[in-house]
């Protein structure tokens, strides 16, 4: 198998996609948004419980999609939980840079390490949308998704 493919479909990714974390609807979410990829028809719903301080107290997602979008959503929920809005925004920007193959050095070392498995996507520009769908949906949920 060629290297780019090996990078893309790393075991970590496949594991996340097969066994997504924080999967399923959330009752009583404070925020919620649906994301849609018109290219493939895939949908994802992101549920949030934002604390009074704006922190991501809880987060879940639901929806079908390709391995990349599922893994990305799953990792996102893992990483966002407990973060403040500013931290979440920073993480998201860093992630977007990373998957587009741009400079992601403003990510913390820890985050960079965790997200490294997603770096392979930058070699597949047509798939970047799959990876960013959940993140954009998260942002929408925060900004316009108060329930």
């Amino acid at each position, binding site marked *: *198998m*060629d290297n*780019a*493919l090996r990078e*893309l*479909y790393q075991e970590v990714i*496949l594991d996340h996609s097969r066994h997504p974390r924080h999967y399923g609807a959330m009752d009583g979410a404070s925020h919620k948004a649906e994301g849609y990829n018109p*290219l*493939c*028809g*895939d*949908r994802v719903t992101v549920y949030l419980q934002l604390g009074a301080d704006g922190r991501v107290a809880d987060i879940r997602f639901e929806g*079908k*999609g*390709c*391995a*990349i979008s599922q893994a990305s959503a799953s990792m996102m929920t893992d990483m966002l939980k407990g973060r403040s809005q500013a931290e979440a925004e920073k993480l998201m920007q860093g992630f977007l840079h990373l998957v587009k193959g741009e400079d992601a050095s403003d990510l913390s070392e820890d985050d960079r390490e965790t997200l490294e498995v997603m770096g392979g996507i930058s070699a*597949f520009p*047509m*798939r970047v949308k*799959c990876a960013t769908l959940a993140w954009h949906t998260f942002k929408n949920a925060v900004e316009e998704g108060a329930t």
Partner: protein
Amino acid sequence: MNAPANIKIFDAERARADFEILSRQVYGKPLVYLDSGASAQKPRIVLDTMRDFAASEYANVHRGVHFLSAAATDRYEAARRTVQKFLSAAREDEIVFTKGGTEAINLVSYSFLAPALQPGDEIVLSVMEHHSNIVPWHFLRERQGAVLRWVDVRDDGSLDIEALDAAIGPKTKLVAITHMSNVLGTVTPLKDIVARAHAKGVPVLADGCQGAVHAVVDVQALDIDFYAITGHKLYGPTGIGALYAKRAHLKKMRPFNGGGEMIREVSQDRVSYADPPARFEAGTPPIVESVGLAAALDYLSGFDRAAVAAHEHDLLAYAREQVGQFNWLRVIGDAPGKGAILSFEAEGMHAHDLATILDREGVAVRAGHHCAQPLMERFGVASTTRASFAMYNTRADVDALIAGLAKARGILM
């Protein structure tokens, strides 16, 4: 599109050599192009004819008396006659050049249907239509209160002709139906459909964007009212398509785009319109593209079409048989006599992942909803993977697809 018993020989390897792009590599692997349903590659003769024409005989058409303008006009009108012959239309002025299949269908909507449409009027269409044969009718629903009557397909993807017949009622203003589904490959019985619709006084539009590529079309024998084609799937250029329409309809239809060439007289207070087909060809038409389309149709017609169809049918049958070995793969669309398109869903593997892995093997397939979302809904999927076969494909291409699928399974599962 069944192969007749006694067919002439078609040499796909030889045809292949006419398509320069097919000898290229991607990621160091030979290109296996199984995406002709989205757009076909173009033979050398099409590319050369267009370039030569543009480099030696080009000018704007119709309005000029000078040599190049006359030459270009001759080529443009000759292209119209080539399309006429290709579709067996009775008259050349029944062929309107458009920018593609989508515009051809929109032309029928804007110029034929919209002007007289009343709220509650119905349009009958099937669930396997391409968005290009759906959205124009949704416009009429949104804007003028038309009602869309959807006809289902059976589980094998074949059209439920009785359901279609039953859907045609006193308020039906048009049956809009694909000739061949771009997802299922299903070929519809146009002649039967037209007969049933005409029995109730209803005209029929066929979306022939796929159908005309794989079957010989005779609009007179079909007695069809409208038939839309697109150049780029017919081994021709982008930027051009055509609508066949019966003369009697065209004469009554109001213009769509307004501009040069489509008028008779314009003053400050008044405007009158040219006769068809000019009435529907506002502005400078796709001149070079018309010449390219004619070259493509001539190229295609240079083969025994039945032999080409038999070749494509063989590829489909072979592919169908090969994928049968994968019990994790569900083929969507198995109608008898279907065209050379194979759509499928793979258990636990998303179409986009499959397509990405196949791509790295050099195998180009489509993944997605194929601009047929109502059909996806009908079959309960968000997307499918689609391999579509053209005259230049071979069994080796199928083998590459099968090997790629096995590999994808290994990676993803």
